[in-house]
């Protein structure tokens, strides 16, 4: 039997004005188990707390009920008070008689009666309370960043600067990501490579950063502070330590059929290649699909010309196993496949390109050396049509496209239009748009410059059809402001295709048990207040993996994610939530229902030997990882055998409250 003390707070007149606090304290004296009951003006004051401590010691209380303000306000205070008097902090219950009683009721009798009921419910619950101890778990002081684009690089740099080891796992042969493919960046028009490559170099030279390129996460286990990752480093058939990046092999390779991914497949490359001049690591890689030696056994020319003896056709995938305390998802995006949008003749004409393809065409290091020419005949175009919202803002039930706004297209289209007009004033540029969305610092000014200073022809309305007519592209669209259908004979059409999460994200989300939305963007722990954390503890989000964003926003989020990672890694051990689920092994039948509803992947199963009067033998039992469980209780209700219960909010505790209220 518990020995319970009840402490009724006046909160000055906040409670005492509508609740007869003395009557409450008096009424509670007759409750079973209550050995002490009193009232005081301010329980949370030092004097009030001293009174509680003294009562705990003098009456040997096993638990206390404080009738006061909301537990959201002072539960932590009174728990500390209890601890300082030698009680377990979870032997404290709060009856909320201010926010949920005195402040909303005007009648004294009514308020007092309700306060007594609330206090009784708290006492009833406390009878079923048990001392709880929050577990601790150690923290591995190393972070894993998945994705080596600007998001991953920035997060890695920030975490490494704080003194922690960081591994960047990048699936491509080089870090740099999408930003490396861009020509200029809005709204300042500074060259993308000029601001990105120094960061790539800094990451490569940082003593705390280890770049694992051409690699992907193979499997993951563990939980916050204690992840174990297996990383598959794909065979690149080049010894990374020996290769000097001289590029002789790439010139000599006789295979010229591979499509250059870095240049959005606009040109061909050899089977052995270095993605781009500033690649990091600056090491060649062999494409096994194209390599004659690997496919037919005949050739090996690269091996002969390599003075560093770096070519190794025997290389195999390598598995690396490492421990991490935190994981950052920075998997980025890709443009959607424009071939679904054949109303724009994307499949019919090479002169219909996506914006990222156009970015490469405009880039001085791109397939045309920065010369604006039509891909079909390498002729200079005179009439270019840009179409925005290609695949963005479609409804969920539409045949194709994404329901969200891709956010960056309005700005990069304005940038492209402006760059074209600046370099080639003879080219007419038309932009079909639904809305020009420019909410960002200096964004609207930038877009207006495109219209006013560079004379870009913005047409409000969409294009309904593009058809190939000889060497020209016939563009038929709406001019909604004039209420007309417009027809333009264009030389090139550029599609501002929607962006979508990288295709590897879905499998990664499953591996990390990090939740995703229906579009495969990772969801944040709270959309406003915890935007860089995944609901899964220890997993953080950086960049477009979480939702469409531009470079400044990505860098800001990358830094924020790094701050969260540092906050985690600088702890030696983590205090777990004490109110966690727990399976009663005598009742659990290992049915897996609880595992399916757990949003954190906190439940696993183990074969355990049971020795109970009803059953002897080995049985599959649910085991809750207390470091991962966040205590929502979804599993407790789903459990068909009522084996799962939530500490601090047990079935019997809640039932007792119900009973006390309905008494």
């Amino acid at each position, binding site marked *: 039997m518990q020995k319970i003390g009840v402490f009724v707070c006046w909160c000055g007149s906040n409670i005492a004005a509508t609740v007869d606090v003395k009557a409450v304290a008096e009424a509670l004296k007759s409750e079973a188990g209550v050995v002490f009951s009193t009232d005081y003006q301010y329980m949370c004051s030092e004097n009030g707390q001293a009174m509680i401590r003294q009562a705990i010691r003098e009456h040997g209380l096993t638990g206390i009920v404080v009738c006061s303000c909301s537990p959201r306000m002072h539960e932590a205070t009174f728990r500390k008070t209890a601890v300082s008097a030698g009680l377990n902090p979870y032997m404290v219950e709060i009856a909320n008689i201010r926010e949920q009683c005195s402040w909303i009721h005007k009648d004294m009798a009514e308020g007092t009666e309700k306060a007594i009921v609330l206090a009784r419910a708290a006492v009833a619950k406390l009878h079923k309370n048990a001392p709880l101890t929050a577990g601790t778990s150690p923290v591995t002081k190393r972070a894993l960043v998945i994705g080596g684009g600007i998001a991953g690089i920035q997060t890695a740099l920030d975490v490494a600067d704080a003194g922690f080891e960081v591994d960047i796992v990048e699936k491509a042969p080089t870090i740099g990501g999408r930003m490396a493919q861009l020509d200029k960046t809005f709204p300042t028009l500074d060259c993308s490579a000029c601001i990105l490559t120094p960061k790539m170099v800094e990451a490569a030279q940082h003593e705390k950063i280890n770049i694992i390129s051409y690699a992907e996460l193979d499997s993951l286990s563990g939980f916050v502070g204690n992840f174990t990752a297996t990383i598959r480093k794909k065979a690149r058939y080049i010894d990374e330590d020996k290769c000097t990046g001289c590029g002789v092999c790439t010139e000599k390779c006789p295979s010229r059929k591979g499509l250059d991914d870095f240049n959005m497949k606009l040109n061909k490359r050899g089977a052995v290649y270095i993605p781009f001049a500033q690649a990091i690591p600056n090491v060649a890689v062999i494409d096994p699909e194209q390599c004659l030696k690997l496919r037919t056994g005949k050739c090996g020319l690269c091996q002969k010309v390599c003075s560093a003896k770096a070519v190794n056709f025997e290389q195999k995938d390598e598995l690396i196993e490492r421990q991490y305390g935190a994981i950052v998802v920075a998997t980025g995006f890709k443009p959607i496949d424009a071939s679904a949008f054949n109303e724009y003749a994307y499949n019919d004409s090479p002169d219909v390109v996506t914006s990222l393809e156009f970015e490469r065409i405009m880039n001085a290091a791109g397939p045309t050396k920065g010369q604006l020419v039509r891909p079909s005949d390498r002729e200079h175009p005179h009439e270019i049509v840009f179409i925005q919202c290609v695949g963005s803002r479609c*409804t969920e039930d539409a045949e194709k496209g994404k329901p969200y706004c891709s956010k960056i297209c309005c700005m990069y289209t304005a940038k492209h239009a402006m760059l074209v007009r600046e370099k080639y004033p003879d080219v007419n540029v038309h932009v079909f748009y639904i809305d020009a969305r420019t909410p960002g610092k200096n964004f609207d000014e930038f877009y207006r410059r495109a219209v006013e200073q560079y004379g870009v022809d913005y047409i409000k309305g969409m294009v309904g059809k593009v058809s190939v007519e000889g060497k020209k592209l016939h563009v038929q669209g709406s001019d909604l402001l004039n209420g007309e259908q417009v027809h333009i004979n264009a030389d090139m059409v550029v599609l501002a295709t929607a962006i979508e999460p990288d295709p590897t994200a879905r499998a990664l989300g499953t591996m990390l048990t990090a939740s995703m939305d229906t579009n495969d963007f990772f969801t944040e722990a709270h959309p406003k207040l915890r935007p860089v954390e995944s609901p899964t503890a220890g997993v953080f989000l950086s960049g477009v993996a979480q939702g469409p964003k531009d470079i400044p926003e990505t860098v800001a989020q990358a830094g924020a994610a790094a701050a969260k990672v540092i906050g985690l890694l600088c702890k030696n051990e983590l205090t777990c939530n004490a109110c966690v689920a727990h399976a009663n092994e005598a009742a659990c039948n290992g049915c897996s229902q609880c595992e399916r509803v757990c949003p954190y992947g906190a439940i696993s199963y183990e074969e355990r030997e049971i020795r109970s009067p009803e059953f002897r033998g080995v049985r599959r039992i649910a085991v809750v990882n207390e470091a991962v469980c966040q205590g929502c209780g979804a599993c407790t209700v789903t459990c068909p055998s009522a084996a799962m219960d939530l500490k601090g909010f047990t079935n019997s505790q809640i039932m007792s409250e119900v009973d006390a209220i309905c008494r």
Partner: protein
Amino acid sequence: MSLTNQVTAADILRISGVDASRCMQCGKCSGACPNYDEMDIPPHRFAIMVRQGRITELMESQAIYRCLSCFACSQRCPRNVEPAKLIEAVRLTVIRQKGQNHMKADSIPEKLDEKLPQQAIVSAMRKYSK
């Protein structure tokens, strides 16, 4: 021969199964319309007028007879609004009223010419009369 004033946006929704309020006025339908120049109310305006409940005006328009029912607008719409179905629904509400057949059997002979496929007359009868 007067049109009843009773038809509401809800009726059009019921007949067509299309929720015009989903339209974001991007104009892709009108950009795709092959008969745009003949349409006194182009598809994107048709959608917004249904949303505004201006059904009577639509019923009195020529667009409901000039729409080719090619469904290019429906096919292109990024939000599944399907303007062609809206036009069809308004046309039906007109034709279903008494004496509102847009094409009558006795008007066929004067329309006949040797280049006109018979199929066109059959489907026009189906489309324009009760």
